[in-house]
């Protein structure tokens, strides 16, 4: 089985286990080259938002990356660059360092683009233990440095909230949980 399928299932399992939310009907921006993940999400009933024009032929909605992120309930492969665009309540799965050798996967994969996407579990990105059961310490493990410098607030196991401004709070999943 291709690693893409394995990572897709692992990411979906982690998202749903951490959030207890329904995938059907969610607007999900898939950042980076994750065709298997996008296909699985679409099959589960998510409205997938992708920047690759070819994705339109596979039933995804094609938008510029910042527009996709601005619409999304869920952003897979989020980075610091997306912060200004996120809507209130958005849930972020941080981009992780590549967890696979390059050159695998579908022929339409472009080179030159750094492969981003959800980490295969478990893969804390900075080796810190998870945030303690109470408290407001910033930078819990697994947030991939998306919010370096912003104080996060524990929401529940594996979810840290970040207030980006008045009436705008986003949630980062710790995929290593």
């Amino acid at each position, binding site marked *: *089985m291709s690693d893409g*399928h*394995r990572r897709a*299932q692992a990411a*979906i*399992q982690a998202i*749903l*286990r951490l*959030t*207890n*939310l*329904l*995938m*059907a*009907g969610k607007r999900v921006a898939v950042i980076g080259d994750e065709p298997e993940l996008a296909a*699985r999400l679409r*099959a*589960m*009933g998510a409205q997938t938002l992708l920047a690759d024009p070819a994705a339109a032929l596979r039933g995804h909605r094609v938008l510029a990356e910042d527009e996709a992120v601005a619409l999304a309930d869920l952003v897979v492969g989020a980075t610091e660059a997306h912060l200004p665009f996120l809507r209130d*309540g958005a849930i972020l799965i941080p981009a992780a360092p590549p967890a696979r050798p390059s050159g695998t996967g579908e022929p339409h994969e472009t080179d030159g683009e750094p492969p981003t996407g959800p980490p295969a579990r478990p893969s804390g990105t900075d080796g810190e233990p998870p945030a303690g*059961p*109470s408290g407001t310490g910033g930078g819990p493990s697994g947030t991939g440095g998306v919010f370096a410098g912003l104080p996060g607030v*524990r*929401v*529940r*196991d594996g*979810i840290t909230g970040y207030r980006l401004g008045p009436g705008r709070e986003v949630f980062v999943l710790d995929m290593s949980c």
Partner: protein
Amino acid sequence: MLADIRDASLRTRGLERIAWARRSMPVLNAIAGELDLTGRTVGLVLVLEPKTANLALTLRDAGADVIVTCPASETADDVAAALVSEGVAVLARSDASPERDRAFALRMLREGLDVLADDGSRVVRLAHAENLLGGLIGAAEETTSGLRPLRVMADRGELRIPVLAVNDARSKYLFDNVHGTGQSCVMAALDLTGLQLAGAVCVVAGYGYVGQGVARYARALGARVVVTEVEPFAALRAHHEGYEVRPLLDACPDADLVFSATGVAHTVTREHLRAMRPGAVVAVAGGVPDEVEAGDVPAGVTVLAEGECVNCAAAEGNPIEIMDLSLAVQALAVDHLVRRGSTMAPAVHLLPEELDERVARLKLRALGIGLDTPSARQREFLGRGL
């Protein structure tokens, strides 16, 4: 206040989980303000987890004294502790024996309930058997498998209170049974086993609403899905939706994962289990006792969650947004029973259509989804009737 829980110190984690669920429950939030349960005592017997805790808090906020009980296997101790800290009576602990669970239910009934929200009709039946109906106005029943015995009781003239069939509201069964149970049971089975679904063979016994959902989510994650049925229309429906349809015994040798989604005892028998290959995994979606004959499982075959509903017994239950719909129906059913129950015959009743539709419209509004309005010419066409 009644309280028998396992560990009050788990309160903080429970409150966190309840608050996270509340964020995605706009329908329950929207109807909370219209309920009036002042001075009423309401018993809740739903799976005790963060979403149902929000129903308990909503009913409390509407003026009710709320008593929650739940069998050990479906009780989250942190949520129980959180509810007690919020002033809700809870008799539920994850370490309770079946005898103690029964004693909890009896103690709740002896408190004198006005309305009971039941799951699996366990407590409604217990109240009949033990002659503890007291002043109970009526009950709301959450599940397909709980309604079946109540309808049998009604047919025999043995049902003594009106029951609202929450399960049969469209805003419940079209979403909870299909998407809620479907997604959560498939994901729970994967979390428990580490099975990779891409390329695996998943057999789904029963193509009712739950089976349709399980089949859909297993296929979405890359499984080849085989459906088994006893009913010709359901079998044809599965066939036309692209599934292989075969007898269960014939499908067992190919299966990596078998879901029983029939809600009927003795669906997966010893003979079926013996026909499976080593490594096969069996799970129950929805479910009744003995749906899988799990007493004598051959070596190499695994039955998840001891044959209980895999998403309740082994994960966080149905997704939050889905339970928002189902629990909004529950809240409206409880309110309706308080207002009208004393005029209703002792029978199984459907939720009034306008309440069901109200839940669907509130959900659409929360999603920001608009509807078309039939034009004058369309209404005229429909009114012509020819």
